[in-house]
């Protein structure tokens, strides 16, 4: 498989249609193409071209024939191979087929979609739940629909691309505040005109650096200034709070948050997105939200696996405790080795290592992969303030032995490339 992917093809097999000179629309990407070629010409492996040939478990895969510990997935709660989850998916595939071939508002709502929404309502204790085809689309839908031209969306500068893209799709006035800065948020709320609605958009966990938001303070300030509040718990669901609802649960602001946005592609272990809310008019969004209406709904097997996983996550207190142990031990271990980390202590299941430049970052990434551990490499523009990061994300299924092995591999890789002395 991988050999076939890397075999060069004969250009004569794929003729390119003629283009007028100077009119190639791809020209705008020439700088990026050149930068990428220069990097790969140094002989390093492509950090954005890894292929998982086999997946053995939530924490192990085969990459280029080598058994590799996965430390760069969003599989925080290790649900992807849960036997009940797999069984539910197989049964739905048998009984409802491979896909719905339609929109949620036409032929694409099956029994499974409603059961998945029921599971979410039960998990979050809310009156309403709306399932989207991805988490990206859930944010796209909320931002573009709920705030009109006269309204204001106030968002954290480090917000996820799906939040920014949702704002770009809609017509609202967009105001940014400095990342996680309560005072900066309040200053901007005070400057808003009296007219127009207000939506403050926050995230429980910011995924690049793994830092969490001071939600108690931010939600209080937002409510005091008459704003509705949406919290994206993509990276907090499953892990934070007594019921695993997210950082907003742990912060004790559940009764103050108007919308919680989330995804099935992280702790839930499949794909899909959702919004939950107690607003009495919430259901109207199903009619007016374009990223909900104008796309096909999730396949029956996906909503069945999601619903089963969500029901189990509620009672996964032991897994949450073990994930915290893993995260704290990894954070301490990396600091002891001499790495610079993005947060002073472990704040989430994401631990980001700050490295000086692309060269060191890619070499470290490759040395780790060759030693047998996969981490994410992140670079601008995905990262804040132009940072180069190696992002490690822990899983509740990482054993204590694996965490020890990972730390040993970080030490040997860091020394091999001359970054650690």
């Amino acid at each position: 498989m991988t050999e076939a992917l890397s075999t060069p093809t004969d250009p004569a097999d794929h003729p390119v249609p003629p283009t007028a000179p100077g009119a190639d629309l791809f020209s705008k990407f020439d700088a990026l193409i050149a930068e990428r070629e220069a990097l790969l010409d140094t002989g390093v492996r492509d950090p954005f071209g890894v292929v998982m040939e086999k997946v053995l478990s939530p924490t192990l895969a085969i990459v280029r024939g080598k058994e590799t510990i996965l430390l760069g997935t969003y599989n925080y709660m290790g649900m992807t191979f849960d036997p009940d989850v797999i069984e539910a998916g197989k049964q739905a595939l048998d009984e409802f087929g491979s896909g719905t071939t339609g929109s949620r508002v036409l032929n694409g709502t099956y029994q499974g979609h409603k059961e998945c929404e029921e599971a979410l309502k039960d998990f979050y204790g809310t009156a309403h739940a709306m399932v989207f085809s991805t988490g990206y689309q859930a944010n796209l839908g909320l931002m573009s629909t709920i705030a009109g031209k006269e309204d204001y969306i106030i968002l954290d500068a480090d917000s996820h691309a799906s939040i920014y893209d949702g704002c770009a799709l809609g017509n609202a006035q967009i105001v940014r505040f400095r990342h996680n800065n309560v005072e900066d948020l309040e200053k901007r709320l005070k400057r808003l005109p009296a007219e127009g609605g207000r939506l403050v958009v926050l995230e429980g966990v910011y995924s690049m650096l793994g830092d969490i938001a001071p939600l108690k303070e931010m939600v209080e300030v937002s409510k005091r200034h008459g704003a509705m509040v949406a919290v994206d718990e993509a990276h907090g669901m499953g892990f934070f709070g007594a019921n695993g609802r997210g950082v907003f649960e742990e912060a004790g602001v559940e009764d103050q948050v108007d919308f919680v946005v989330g995804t099935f592609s992280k702790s839930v272990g499949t794909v899909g997105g959702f919004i939950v809310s107690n607003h009495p008019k919430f259901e109207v969004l199903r009619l007016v939200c374009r990223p909900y209406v104008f796309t096909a709904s999730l396949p029956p097997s996906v909503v069945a696996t999601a619903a089963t996983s969500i029901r189990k996550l509620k009672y996964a207190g032991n897994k949450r405790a073990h994930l915290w142990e893993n995260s704290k031990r990894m954070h301490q271990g990396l600091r002891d080795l001499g790495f610079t980390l993005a947060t002073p202590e472990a704040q989430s299941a994401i631990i980001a290592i700050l490295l000086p430049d692309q060269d060191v970052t890619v070499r470290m990434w490759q040395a780790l992969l060759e030693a047998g551990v996969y981490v994410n490499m992140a670079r601008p523009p995905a990262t804040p303030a132009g940072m180069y990061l190696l992002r490690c994300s822990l899983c509740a299924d990482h054993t204590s032995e694996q965490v020890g092995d990972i730390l040993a591999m970080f030490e040997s890789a860091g020394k091999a490339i001359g970054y650690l002395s």
Partner: protein
Amino acid sequence: MTDREETFARVAQLIAPFDKKGVALAEGTTFAGDLEWDSLTVMDFVAAIEDEFDILITMNMQAEIETVGQLVDAVEQLRNDG
């Protein structure tokens, strides 16, 4: 100095810490082309302008502002509206 000249001078002061190239500022100096600012620099700079003049410059307005002169005009207008 007129009000506008004073606003221009204050804007220029706030540009200085972000102006790594030492560009001579004029009405027509562009942020993307002449100053070569990326989106992160723009974010920090806009926050500084907002706090200096106690105004909000929405991302919608930012998309329309390309030159220093346009920014000074926008700041003047926002202060008068407030």
